[in-house]
């Protein structure tokens, strides 16, 4: 047991910090980071820089164009990127979900067609799992894929797809066998987002940003070689994807929470108009200390998850624990920030405290307990798969 960086890890971290200092977009840290389409060009340029510096696909095997680095390096990368408040990589779904899924279940042809372009950002991926009628109960999805010659024709609708408006490819689940039990009739497809019949419409969130989209599929032809895994065997493939969604994300989330807490501390130490520091209120002090304890707990729970990932190659249940707790801790933190602002909290534009940074963070945090597995589903997963409690249905 050693919580310190090994000499190799320490030198990787130091080089990374230097690189971030030299390469982050100018003035990035001062701008209130808001996810949105406005900085797409910048985000693309940033993603390209990460690739050229070898930071995309750090842990991917070298034969797929990756860096072949241990998982701890990926953890350091995510942590440092988050601490520096670096822009998101536009291909998070390609790197974190599509890539690992293809490595586990893809054909050699699929791997050579997609893996390197995922790293370079030439192929941006989005995800087509959820549907208007299939959210937490994903297996009830209704998008149909009907065999037609040596391919399939897809019809249906997908929703909550981040990056769909810029994506070249979509990892998509569709029903190939309506007769089979609901988990057994699904197939995992790679869908070309520029194929005829694919239409993307933005969806505006309660923050006002159109961060994600609806995808409409009307008679979309998908060749058979774009099936991942077995026909009707898509559920197992999708589970790999979802496991990776939660498995590698923890360090980025904790890094972001660390940044928020640092800002919260700065906010609490700033005297208000009458010279009173929120940081002198014992209740505020207790809540901030609690947030710090939770942050450290999450951080080291991530380390434990990393150890189990490094040993087995498969993310363990700690990922669900960390995501569940992070999302709720993040909501508490951002709400506390608004409380510290008092009546000012309603002002969210130019001239507001930090130009509306906290208002955006607080509103955005409400999505955290819904996206990537609702808190209710995560509790079911932990109850059933970790604690061995009976199924809740």
């Amino acid at each position, binding site marked *: 047991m*050693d919580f310190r960086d090994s000499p190799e890890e320490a030198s990787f971290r130091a080089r990374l910090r230097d690189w971030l200092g030299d390469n982050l977009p100018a003035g990035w840290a001062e701008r209130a980071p808001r996810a949105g389409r406005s900085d797409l060009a910048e985000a693309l340029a940033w993603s390209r820089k990460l690739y050229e510096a070898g930071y995309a696909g750090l842990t991917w095997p070298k034969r797929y164009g990756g860096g072949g680095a241990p998982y701890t390096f990926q953890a350091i990368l995510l942590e440092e990127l988050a601490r520096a408040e670096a822009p998101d990589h536009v291909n998070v779904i390609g790197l974190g979900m599509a890539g690992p899924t293809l490595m586990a279940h893809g054909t050699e042809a699929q791997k050579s067609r997609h893996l390197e372009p995922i790293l370079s950002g030439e192929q941006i991926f989005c995800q087509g799992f959820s549907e208007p009628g299939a959210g937490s109960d994903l297996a009830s999805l209704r998008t149909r894929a009907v065999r037609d010659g040596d391919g399939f024709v897809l019809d249906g609708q997908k929703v909550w797809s981040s990056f769909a408006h810029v994506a070249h490819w979509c990892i998509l689940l569709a029903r190939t066998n309506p007769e089979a039990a609901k988990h057994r009739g699904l197939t995992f497809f790679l869908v070309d987002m520029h194929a005829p019949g694919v239409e993307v419409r933005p969806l505006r969130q309660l923050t006002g940003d159109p961060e994600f989209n609806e995808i409409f599929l009307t008679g979309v032809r998908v060749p058979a070689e774009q099936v991942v895994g077995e026909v009707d065997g898509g559920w197992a493939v999708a589970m790999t994807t979802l496991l990776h969604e939660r498995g590698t994300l923890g360090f980025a989330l904790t890094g972001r929470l660390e940044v928020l807490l640092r800002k919260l501390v700065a906010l609490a130490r700033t005297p208000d108009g009458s010279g009173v520091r929120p940081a002198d209120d*014992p209740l505020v*002090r*207790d809540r901030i200390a609690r947030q710090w304890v939770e942050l450290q*707990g999450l951080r080291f729970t991530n*380390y434990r998850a990393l150890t189990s990932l490094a040993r087995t190659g498969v993310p363990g249940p700690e990922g669900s624990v960390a995501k569940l707790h992070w999302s709720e801790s993040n909501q508490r933190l951002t709400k506390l920030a608004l409380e510290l602002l008092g009546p000012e909290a309603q002002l969210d534009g130019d001239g507001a405290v930090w130009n509306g940074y906290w208002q955006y963070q607080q509103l955005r945090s409400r999505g955290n307990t819904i996206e990537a597995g609702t808190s209710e589903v995560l509790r079911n997963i932990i109850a059933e798969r970790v604690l061995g409690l009976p199924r809740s249905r």
Partner: protein
Amino acid sequence: MDFAFSEEQEMLRESARDFLATRYPLERVAELADGEPGWDPSSWGRLADLGWLGLSVAEDHGGAGATLVEEAVLFEETGRALYPGPFLATVGLALPALEAAAKTVPQALSAVLAGERSATLAWAEPDGPRTIAEAGSAACAATRDGDGWRLTGTKRLVPDVAAAGAVVVVARAEAPGDRQREPAPGAGARAADSVAGVGLWLVDLPAERAVVVPRSTMDTTRRLGDLVLDAAPATLLVPPGEAAPVLAATRLRALAAVACEAVGVTERALRFATEYAGQREQFGRPVGSYQAVSHRITDAYVAGELARSLAYWAAWSVASDEEQAPVACAAAKSAAGEAAVLAAESAIQCMGGIGFTWDHPLHRLYKRAQWIDAFEGHGAAHRRELAAALLDG
């Protein structure tokens, strides 16, 4: 970064779990806890044979030269088993003072290592310190008597004092004429003044002029008592003025130790809850299939996993003498104490009437959880310390 116990440490855990499960199943613990003297003194020699008593003591001093990380495993397992004996008192609380005196009073340490004697630490006083952190304001008076010393004063809240064969007592040496100088008014002056004369002495029990007064304690597996000293003979361990660093180290070590115990208590309580909820049927279904039940257990599990991460971090930080050790210990103690209470309360609720009976061992875990939560102050006290580190200065 490596967040895993080594193979040797895991073997230690396994053997500890075996030993405790065989000799002290919870039914046996309950029997001991409901009777006198409240533990099985014949176990003490076995603990010495197993190498538990000198695990972290330097090899030069007759120990095994391991660290608090190895002991963390034992604290977790003895917590999980609710081992009723002065293990925490001896290893967690008394050892640092005994080892500090390894050169001057070697027989005190070697008697403990040989399993001939258990020990505890007495810091609290009726109108003086309540916590180890405040022990510098002790008023218990140490006076020279020829080559030796005599102690006069009352100590309270002494863990396992009725079981212990010796007590490390925090006291103040008074040279003739010192009395007139006390007390210096003004908190600052008082504190500085206080630490100056404070040292640590060993009182062997039973001793003439030393009376142990057992106090009825909620957790009967770890009873508190008063120690009334009226010119009781004592051996100097740590000279007046030099106790502060030893007490500070003892405190951190004890906080990490009880945090690890709490992790064991949490796991055991949740095991009762999940086993029961998986089998007990109401309305034709196991009660654990109801999310109102399973999610409650899950929340306690999540709190427990974060606490586990923090407890191991704290133990490692103390063992490696990291600068962050004080905040790690404060975080771990507050989180782990509260998680254990939450787990026990959740288990009591999920088990319905059964968990509320005297016959079921759950209440004993609950009471231990509360003992830990109260030790050295509840969670809020430790968060006060963390808030000061985060928000002031």
